[in-house]
């Protein structure tokens, strides 16, 4: 089981008709799914939609009561394929993942799904990881909708709108026999707000019914000639059906005055930012009143031509606000206006930036330019706009840029991956630098200081595959790093299988921390915990051996830096051909602490003998070179200024957040650094024997210490 409990959030999912739900966006979506009579939910965890998965995983009893099947899919591809249950049967299904990373993985299944079409509502919830805080490539999911003719919802970022979009999405899917994607940006996923809940609904048609009454229609299968029929059906029937539904149900919204010289068209997700920008320009207020006509496209695809035309006619100019490149919608609108010979000027990314997040200042600047071009008089009595530039240009503030350090996310305190990269650094010192292909996951933090290891990252589970070209005779081998999450997601076949089959003569390092750690500590196939709902404890070593790997080493304690180093060296120098696979396993410290800390505290409270370990640095012995930090970067290993007038540089120091993982000691031992580190073992509730031995030792040691101190001539301190 994941070590974090979501029991409180599960309670929120049980709210009934008329009760107020208060919480974050992604939980509101989860609740909306249950209110919509969904039959099954799947997905692959990742920011910003992990909570949907986590909470449903913890809500097993409630889901059983409702008759909803929940699955933690092996990958986004598996999740997308799951939606095929809605192809023939009138069951509603929803899947979720991080986009566009996950949508890329899922696109094979999505293409097939959207070609054949669906009977039951099929909803794909995309957590758009775009803009600040994102950890993936900056792309638009919009392209997937266009290429496969799937519909894409982009609701206004408030809880009632998002919840409404879930219900609308299912209905739109059913009305047009097309899967529907619902994109929610990262801030909207994490937005705290409220909406009025409805009762959860049991599915009207169950999966059990479907299984027991199978239906088959060869025309829904993507094979000739049906695939050509699908194409025609999409363009001639499903598309118009969707457009009609969107129009009739008024999924897109109009705000502000009916008439105006100019108008603003925006994606739903942009609405709050546009409103704030207009407010700053004095053209709207915080309650949603606007002086400019607004057309809000809560459906990003397909575009409803008639609505766009009606909005444009009679206006001098309109501007399209869509985030990310390229300007798909603006282009489509240009085509539309040109074909209909409508002379309204259309602006968009000629004024607004091509890429990047559309923050309020960005939008304010763009909209101001647009309004100045066509309806300057509107800006008449605008209040002064917020502008920090004079402050930012002051030398006092500019000096900050030199002082404020970059602070990217990194390995946690006591992370078991740290010693792996420390060992790699030590190997690097002996054997030189190597080409290192990285993957996706926590271990990718190795690319940052202090380790600076890793050259490329090509996708989840693709690390070793991305080193496959380097399978040539050379004096050095490539090293590929992959996490256990990536391994099971895609890596076993695509990376390890590929390496075995092609006799890839490189090193593959599988970092096994017992969880899908970077996404929040979810269980995966090789997790060591017993999970009553899932089959865990499947060995990575057996898996790679099963597909033919022969040089396989398991390291069961990554903190053994010397062993780690020696194993890596062996892998890089052995004469054996083919992939050299090292599985380095130790539990994710964040999750381990979540589990162990309460247990430890309870045991101590119950009077049991417990030993707590942590590390420390002898300040007098430390010389302030910080070599230990360059092989660690642990948050609990820091530096401090010393008051010793003979020491120039700050000395190392370990704070109370140390969890005693052992890395500091092992590293200083393996790298022959310095003897400053000590491990302190504190025995809580010592037993009689402990006390007896301790007093005996203390007597002798104390006597010796006193003896030496007495003989020493020293200044009083």
């Amino acid at each position, binding site marked *: 089981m994941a070590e974090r409990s979501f029991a409180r959030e599960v309670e929120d999912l049980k709210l009934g008709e008329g009760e107020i739900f208060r919480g974050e966006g992604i939980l509101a979506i989860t609740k909306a799914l249950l209110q919509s009579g969904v039959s099954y939910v799947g997905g692959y965890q990742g920011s910003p939609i992990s909570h949907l998965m986590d909470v449903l995983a913890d809500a097993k009893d409630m889901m059983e009561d409702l008759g909803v099947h929940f699955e933690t899919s092996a990958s986004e591809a598996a999740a997308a394929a799951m939606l095929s249950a809605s192809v023939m049967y009138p069951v509603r299904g929803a899947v979720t993942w991080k986009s566009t990373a996950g949508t890329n993985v899922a696109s094979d299944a999505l293409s097939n799904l959207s070609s054949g079409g669906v009977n039951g509502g099929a909803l794909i919830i995309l957590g758009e990881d775009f803009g600040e805080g994102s950890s993936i490539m900056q792309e638009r999911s919009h392209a997937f909708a266009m290429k496969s003719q799937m519909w894409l919802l982009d609701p206004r970022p408030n809880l009632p709108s998002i919840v409404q979009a879930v219900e609308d999405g299912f209905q739109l899917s059913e009305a047009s026999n097309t899967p529907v994607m619902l994109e929610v940006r990262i801030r*909207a996923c994490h937005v705290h707000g409220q909406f009025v809940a409805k009762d959860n609904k049991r599915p009207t048609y169950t999966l059990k019914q479907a299984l027991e009454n199978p239906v088959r229609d060869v025309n829904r299968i993507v094979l000739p000639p049906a695939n050509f029929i699908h194409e025609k059906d999409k363009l001639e029937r499903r598309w118009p059906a969707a457009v009609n539904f969107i129009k009739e149900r008024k999924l897109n919204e109009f705000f502000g005055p009916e008439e105006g010289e100019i108008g603003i068209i925006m994606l739903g997700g942009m609405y709050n930012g546009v409103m704030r920008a207009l407010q700053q320009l004095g053209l709207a207020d915080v309650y949603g009143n606007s002086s400019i*006509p607004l057309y809000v496209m809560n459906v990003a695809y397909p575009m409803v031509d008639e609505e766009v035309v009606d909005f444009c006619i009679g206006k001098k100019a309109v501007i399209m606000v869509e985030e990310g490149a390229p300007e798909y919608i603006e282009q489509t609108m240009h085509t539309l206006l040109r074909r209909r010979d409508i002379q309204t000027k259309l602006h968009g990314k000629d004024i607004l930036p091509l890429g990047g997040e559309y923050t309020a200042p960005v939008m304010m600047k763009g909209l101001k330019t647009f309004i100045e071009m066509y309806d300057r008089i509107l800006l008449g009595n605008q209040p002064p706009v917020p502008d920090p530039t004079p402050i930012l240009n002051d030398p006092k503030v500019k000096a900050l*840029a030199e002082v404020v350090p970059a602070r990217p996310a990194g390995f946690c305190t006591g992370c078991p991956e740290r010693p792996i990269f420390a060992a790699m650094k030590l190997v690097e010192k002996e054997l030189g630098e190597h080409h290192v292909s990285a993957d996706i996951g926590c271990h990718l933090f190795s690319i940052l200081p202090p380790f600076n290891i890793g050259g490329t990252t090509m996708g989840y589970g693709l690390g070793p595959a991305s080193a496959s070209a380097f399978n040539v005779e050379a004096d050095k081998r490539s090293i590929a790093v992959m996490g256990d999450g990536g391994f099971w997601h895609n890596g076993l076949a695509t990376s390890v299988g590929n390496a075995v089959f092609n006799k890839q003569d490189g090193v593959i390092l599988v970092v096994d921390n017992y969880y899908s750690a970077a996404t929040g500590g979810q269980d995966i196939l090789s997790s060591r915990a017993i999970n009553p709902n899932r089959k865990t404890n499947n060995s990575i070593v057996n898996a790679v051996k099963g597909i033919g790997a022969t040089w396989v080493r398991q390291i069961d304690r990554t903190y053994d830096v010397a062993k780690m180093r020696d194993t890596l060296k062996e892998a890089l120098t052995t004469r054996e051909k083919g992939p050299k696979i090292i599985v380095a396993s130790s539990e994710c410290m964040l999750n381990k602490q979540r589990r162990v800390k309460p247990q430890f505290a309870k045991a101590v409270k119950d009077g049991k003998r417990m030993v707590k370990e942590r590390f420390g640095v002898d300040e007098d012995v430390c010389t302030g070179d910080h070599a230990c930090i360059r092989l660690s970067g642990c948050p609990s290993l820091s530096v401090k200024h010393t008051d010793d007038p003979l020491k120039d540089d700050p000395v190392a120091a370990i704070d109370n957040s140390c969890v005693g993982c052992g890395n500091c000691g092992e590293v200083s031992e393996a790298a022959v650094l310095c003897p400053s580190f000590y491990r302190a073992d504190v025995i809580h509730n010592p037993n009689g024997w402990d006390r007896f031995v301790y007093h005996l030792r203390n007597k002798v040691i104390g006597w010796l210490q006193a003896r030496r101190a007495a003989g020493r001539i020293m200044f009083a301190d």
Partner: protein
Amino acid sequence: MNETVNLKTLIASDKPLTLAILAMGGQGGGVLADWIVALAEEQGWMAQSTSVPGVAQRTGATIYYIEMLPARDGVSPIFSLMPTPGDVDVVLAAELMEAGRSVLRGLVTPDKTVLIASTHRSFAVGEKEKPGDGIGDPTVVVGATDFAAKRTIAFDMDTLALKNGSVISASMFGALAAADLLPFSKEAFEATIRGGGKGIEASLKTFNAAFDRARTRPRDEISASPPKRFDAMPETAGHPELDRLVHRLRAEFPEVALPLLFAGVKKLVDFQDPAYAGEYLDRVGKLHALDRANGGEEKDYAFTVQAAKYVAVAMAYDDVIRVADLKTRGSRFDRVRKEVGVKQDQILYMTEYMHPRMEEVCGTLPKGLGLWVEKRPKLFSWLDRRINKGRRVQTGTLFWFLTLYTVAALRRIRRRTLRHLRETEHLEAWLNAAIPLFSRNYDLAVEVINNRRLVKGYSDTHARGLSKFDRVMSALMTLSDREDGAIWMKRLRQAALLDENGIALDGALKTVATL
């Protein structure tokens, strides 16, 4: 929903209250944001918070953003999902550099922003990993925040929270309440804490302590780096040999050098014995005589002062005997107990991580024997194979304590060891490089003395330090007749402290070569 409102006159001028929280992952910024939102909602306001945190990763800089405003006639306000620079009412920064970051992001402006910041530091990897002192200057942050903020409440909220058994979110919530920025009573703040999960009592205690602190003393003084400790020289040190040393200090040296000289004397008495400290005074005394002869008085005896410091550092080199001595002292046992926070009924054992090599063993041998072994590479490496490995030394057990205790006792023969010979040779070569510069380039002589800062650490680190020292010193010939030689020497040394492999130093040396 498709309502349309036609008149510009309907546009209200109400603005939401806006708050940004800048924190590091794992600091509890989310808890603080949740409290603020819950507080607003309990008081009948509408509130929205957003964030962009990853799920699991810790330590990265992150920002939470909150807007709040009551609904008007049942119409909910539309809140922004991100702060607009120049339009933030309150910035809460959970660390000093994060306060700096908030200013850099334009979130703090003098017309409206109240800054509530904790002044404690959590150093970034980039600051910690430098071989020298990479810590950012906090006074720059204070300068910028004082300039940019309308009002500032800044003190160490982290330590305050720890002292009261809670975490920083509780103390920041207290400071926010004390700042009188939200139109809610202190009781309402407390009720919000009571409504939340665990640790309520500790949170309330911390909240109240921070509230009082913010009201009575809202600002901490911040200096660039904590002051060094210079002990006052005693009139009498309680031992004739020590008194003699103090007497010599007063009689033979200028006032300006006394603090460092006394620190040096103390260190060397502790390192070896009073006689060794006397030797130190002899050495520095000779240097001081030269200093005086070469017009050092005009330069405030800069050479003597720096020599007082670095000759002491060089003479108190880090050897096995020193480490064993420090690790076995009673005062050290007490200090560790205190640092680790061991309670009365608990038992503490220490394990030292040591990795002796044959080099260290050889260095501890009498110089004749040591040299004899060194000259026999086969024997040396045979012995090294037996000695060179990591050892976990349990100082609290009798066997290991006695082992270290015995090694520490080698102090008596220290001055006859090979290591001592080597250190003395290095010391003299270094001083001899500086002395001829006196008459030609006083400032450069001082910088040569200062170069000793580069030699530090053990084993490989020590070797790397020595090599950097040598590389910096290699520029001496080029620089000795240049007026700006001292400035260049200083630059070289600073470059050497920037990175481990001396890449910056190589660049600087190339520049010097073109002079």
